[in-house]
């Protein structure tokens, strides 16, 4: 293979993919074509996720739990606020156990697809968008839905129109709960008036508009910060979004429409009536379609194009991506009226994206996945090990603690303690590499390609045991980078 070609293959596999797997040769023949082919269909994985409950299933079980709990409480004559009797605790525990088992399957499927996928570029895009539309499971009522959101809302749309992706995310219970949308009520909506009438002059229980989702859509999901929208735009958008909700709004509050058949529920009564004006554009009151029309315009806004292109380029090329590439990507996106693949194509056809000197620091998740793939390490049947490693390395799955997601630049991840823990994890990974017919040096050559320099090669060759040789590979500086 020509030198250029071997660099290109390494770039495709590592910078754009999830790290090379032994025997994964397709990338070597035509690296650019290998990437492009992954944009033509949905990413691998449908079978891996077979049999997992849908968000609607989860929500039905939530509904069922509250119904049974309230029955038991009523039967036991428990007053509001009093301690729960033991039969309620038992009920709670049985549901928790079942949800815990489902969560294990969800996490395991996510690790399994990362290890096995034949479309690692598409899989990386899935994870990019998951982080772009970050939900954090430390918000307890979003916890059950974060992993399903990736399966249900992101994965099917990752190679489609951004609007479809955006809409699927904003109507998913994970996002609706994480950013408190389900509880937002228009101040002049029927629901608000009902509450006021019932209060009959007494100070009403404080319920009303919640701007959280509207603000993050503008700031993080579409236009980007400092793109010119105002607080008035945020408030108007929040008003338009009122009514977007789900059957179980929050624990202990069931909506009568719970049996309506989906995990998304438009609650007409909570919707703020009236025309809305956002970024100078008027939107007539079409109920739930009002916010949908706003999302459609936001999706193809030039600021959104720049924001998305900048983030994608930062994710794949460099912490400070070359402005011309960002410009080309944004333009391709606008020219195609919001097709994500047009933006991806512009990315992979940019010579800057293939520059051998470019590099991105592997996030902890990337690092572990690349180790699993490069070492042909069995994911096993219990995701606890991998989730625990990620937590130690500071990137617990779906717990970024912020709607901005995990950081994507090297300086945030490079710290002495982090490097030390990587060496520990490298050792743990090295010990898990199957040893039958293992040639660590050949493996290192396959994994790092032309980036395996002589000192690293020597360090690996000198290791006292195959597991330690693989640990050296995983812990060496070159492996910490997507190059």
């Amino acid at each position, binding site marked *: 293979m020509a030198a250029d070609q071997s660099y290109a293959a390494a770039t495709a596999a590592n910078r754009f993919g999830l790290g090379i797997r032994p025997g994964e040769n397709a990338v070597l023949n035509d690296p650019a074509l290998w990437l492009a082919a992954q944009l033509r269909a949905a990413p691998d994985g449908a079978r891996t996720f077979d049999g997992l409950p849908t968000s609607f299933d989860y929500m039905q079980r939530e509904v069922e739990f509250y119904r049974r709990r309230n029955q038991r409480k009523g039967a036991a004559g428990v007053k509001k606020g009093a301690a729960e009797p033991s039969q309620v605790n038992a009920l709670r525990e049985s549901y928790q156990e079942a949800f*815990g088992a489902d969560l294990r399957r969800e996490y395991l499927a996510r690790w399994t697809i990362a290890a096995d996928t034949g479309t690692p570029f598409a899989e990386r895009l899935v994870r990019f968008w998951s982080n772009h539309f970050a939900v954090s499971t430390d918000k307890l009522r979003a916890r059950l839905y974060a992993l399903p959101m990736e399966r249900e809302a992101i994965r099917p749309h990752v190679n489609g129109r951004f609007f479809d992706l955006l809409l699927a995310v904003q109507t998913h219970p994970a996002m609706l709960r994480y950013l408190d949308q389900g509880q937002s009520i228009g101040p002049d909506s029927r629901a608000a008036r009902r509450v006021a009438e019932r209060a009959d002059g007494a100070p009403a229980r404080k319920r009303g508009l919640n701007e959280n989702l509207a603000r993050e859509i503008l700031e993080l999901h579409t236009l980007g910060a400092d793109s010119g929208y105002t607080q008035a735009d945020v408030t108007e958008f929040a008003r338009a979004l009122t009514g977007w909700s789900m059957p179980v709004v929050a624990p202990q509050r069931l909506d009568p429409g719970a049996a309506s058949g989906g995990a998304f529920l438009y609650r007409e009564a909570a919707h703020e009536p009236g025309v809305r004006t956002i970024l100078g554009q008027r939107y007539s009151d079409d109920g739930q379609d009002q916010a949908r029309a706003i999302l459609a315009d936001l999706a193809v806004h030039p600021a959104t194009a720049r924001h998305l292109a900048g983030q994608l380029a930062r994710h794949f090329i460099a912490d400070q991506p070359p402005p011309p590439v960002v410009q080309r990507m944004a333009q391709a996106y606008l020219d195609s009226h919001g097709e994500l693949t047009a933006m991806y194509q512009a990315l992979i056809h940019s010579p800057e994206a293939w520059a051998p000197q470019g590099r991105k620091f592997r996030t902890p998740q990337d690092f572990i996945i690349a180790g699993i793939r490069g070492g042909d390490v069995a994911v096993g049947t219990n995701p606890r090990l991998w989730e625990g490693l990620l937590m130690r390395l500071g990137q617990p799955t779906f717990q970024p603690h912020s709607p901005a997601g995990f950081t994507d630049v090297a300086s945030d991840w490079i710290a*002495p303690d982090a490097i030390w823990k990587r060496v520990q994890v490298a050792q743990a990974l090295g010990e898990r590499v199957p040893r039958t017919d293992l040639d660590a040096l050949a493996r290192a050559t396959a994994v790092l390609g032309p980036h395996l320099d002589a000192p690293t090669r020597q360090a690996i060759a000198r290791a006292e*045991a195959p597991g330690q040789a693989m640990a050296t590979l995983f812990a060496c500086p070159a492996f910490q980078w997507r190059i």
Partner: protein
Amino acid sequence: MTKVTRRRFLGTLGAGAATLTLWPGISAAATGSETRLLVLLLRGGLDGLHAVPPYGDPDYARLRGPLALAPDSAQPASKLDGTFALHPALAFAAQLFGRGEFMPLVAVAPPYWGRSHFDAQDCVENGTATPYGAQTGWLNRAAAALAGADGLAIANVMPLMMRGPANIQTWSPPLPMQVNPILLQRLEPLYGEDPQLAAAFANALQSQGQGESMNDMQSGGAAGSNDAMEQNVPAGKAGTLPGRLPALMKAAGSFMAGADGPRVGFVEDYGWDTHANEAAILGRKLKELDDAFAAFHGAAVAVWPKTVIVAVTEFGRTAAINGTNGTDHGTGGAMFLAGGAVRGGRVGGKWPGMAANQLFEQRDIRATTDLRAIFKGILTGHMGLGEAVLAQNVFPNSGALAPFDGLLRA
């Protein structure tokens, strides 16, 4: 149900991860009369001349320079007899020696004398005269020959020595948090060349108490933990936590002590490849090994009288030290037998001497005993395997190699 908290999630996931429920009936005191054999493979090439210093050999002090140890050193080695002593870190082993339950053997090696880690380890594990001479391991074949004996490998992936027809369970703690000092030595120059990572790596070594380890770490210095990963124990802080190997040996001891526990066990360790700064690294590693013997003993008191532990490595190291206060790959090395069934309290093996004309290729201790002869001696006397089975199945084509005699109590 939103109380499916993270802690609860992990708690549910983690249930049983490190419990000893693998073997039914393990809680009962051992009542079986069956003997136990544990092989501990020290990967990397333990320097026998540092662990069991032949202080009485006329050439030893000259060849070893600053690495030489003796009963009258600043840190006195335990005198075993007129020729050999034991490294001061091996304190528990020295006690066992005094009770007649510990026996170093010197000048031993597998039949392969080629100085490659991988080839030598392969040979030690496959039980033939050549690297890659078999796809299965001799300890597995021995377990298969012991009717109904299960085996236990304390490892994440099945090591060659335990591969084969017999039923072997594997067990490992969730995550080793201790970092192999040799791995750090190998990484240090690589990180030095990466402008974005060099400072972070150097600081990590410093703050983890390893900063001086590359230069003049004192024995017993940095240790690590292998605690469950979700425990937020600061890993690698100097001297505060038990090492990886003792934890593995404790687990092995717990499993094997059960009445229905495995009769055959395997534990492996690495980090013995001491090309530089050997005194510091071996000071730490031998302390760990000593703690490991003690940990197994503590966990397996019930079966200790019926136990033989065989600690073995793939080769010894050069007779002379190199230019970086370390030693390079050699040939004849040392091994240890420990346990109540061992006829210890003496040093075994035939010492070939360290004079230039006595060394193998004028650099290594000449191996005078084939490791397989030791293994055979234990498998016959201790585990009751017949010589024919040993010569054909366990160590193929080894009929000419007699079992080493006198290793066991009558």
